[in-house]
């Protein structure tokens, strides 16, 4: 009798207690069931990212979009279906409460980017500092990355372009997206065009910084205030984080 009553208990113990003990163990060399605490942000070197406070971001304000497109020479060609978009303002409306959100969405610079996984020519790649880019020298314009991206962040250039910006080459037949102003990063400017514009012309809703530097503003705010990743269920660990959604 006692053995009968103990049997389910031990099974439950096995499921709840023992499984939790296993979870932290190594299941193969270098493969963990659970990421050890503190592993996030422990890689060497910087990882650049953005933090966007959607409570500050205002509906109708397009300072970041305009600055980005001005910085990179992205102009409308009069055909909205195919015009490139590096940042889009997304408006969210909760019908139950009537609450409205407005937030800029650009390339989220994932740690595990699906666009890199699917690229047949390795043109879509992630730099050591976490910036996800397209190498247009090897891009063949197949647009697999555009289909793979859950954020719809990439655009295809359909037409021949002229008068590109010197720091931002763009050309027909290639895919492009937010570069996190990589030319500024390499120059040593610790800001992007969108963040700069949001602070001067917008509402101070965006912060740029090094996620791996515990003393940076962005890392402190993420640590103290928390944040949300869009489509966190996909476990892509984006470097662009949001607050207030």
């Amino acid at each position, binding site marked *: 009798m006692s053995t009968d009553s103990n049997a389910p208990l031990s099974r439950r113990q096995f499921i709840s207690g023992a499984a939790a003990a296993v979870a932290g163990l190594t299941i193969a060399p270098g493969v963990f069931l659970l990421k050890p605490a503190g592993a996030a942000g422990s890689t060497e070197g910087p990882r650049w990212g953005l933090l966007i406070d959607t409570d500050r971001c205002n509906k109708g304000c397009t300072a970041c979009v305009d600055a980005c497109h001005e910085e990179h020479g992205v102009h409308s060609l009069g055909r909205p279906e195919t015009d490139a978009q590096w940042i889009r303002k997304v408006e969210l409306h909760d019908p139950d409460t009537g609450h409205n959100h407005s937030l800029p969405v650009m390339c989220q610079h994932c740690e595990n980017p699906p666009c890199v996984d699917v690229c047949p020519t390795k043109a879509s790649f992630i*730099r050591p*500092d976490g910036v996800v880019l397209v*190498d247009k020298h090897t891009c063949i314009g197949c647009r697999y990355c555009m289909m793979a991206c859950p954020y719809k962040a990439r655009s295809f250039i359909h037409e021949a372009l002229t008068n*590109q910006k*010197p*720091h931002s*080459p763009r*050309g027909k037949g*290639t895919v492009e997206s937010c570069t996190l102003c990589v030319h500024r990063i390499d120059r*040593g400017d610790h800001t992007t065009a969108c963040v700069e514009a949001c602070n001067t012309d917008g509402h101070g809703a965006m912060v740029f910084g090094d996620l791996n530097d515990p003393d940076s503003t962005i890392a402190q705010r993420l640590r103290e205030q928390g944040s949300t990743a869009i489509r966190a269920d996909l476990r892509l660990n984006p470097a662009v984080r949001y607050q207030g959604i």
Partner: protein
Amino acid sequence: MHPRSTLFGIALPAVLAAGLALTLGGCSSQAEAPPMPQALGEQCVEPTDVMRRNHMAILFHERDEAKRYGRRNPDHSFVGCIDCHVSPSASRDQPETHFCMACHQFNAVKMDCFQCHTDTPSDEAAALWEAHGDAAALDATIDRHLAGFTGAAQPFSVTPFSVTPLPATPVPALSLPENSTP
């Protein structure tokens, strides 16, 4: 061996050698090089003969370092070439005004850099071109312009590109296998 193939084995190399000699003989007079537009600066980042022969290799070699790792060499930057060599008033439609096109057209080289990269100098460089008249002021502004590139977040640490002069290639001797048939 068939006598006809033996005849070809001797006659063909002789004919080819004669043709080559005639061709080389016809090349004795050199074609005149195209006039190249004057650059903004006085000294290029590498000696002129190195750049003439190897500029494409330098650009190609360091392209992936710059693009994929952000390790940019300010001396060998594509934007730097354009800023210094191409006047803001130049146009690729008039090759004689555009440094790159002047030589590429002469040498029948068709490359597609400018499908994506801009073919005119940056705004900062365009201002230097405007001020081209005052040499002293120009030197100072060029220094300032170059100093703007030195604050790179990641220092440049590429394996230096070694320029190996191409060996003088002798005309290969014509030799066909003995039993070769045309």
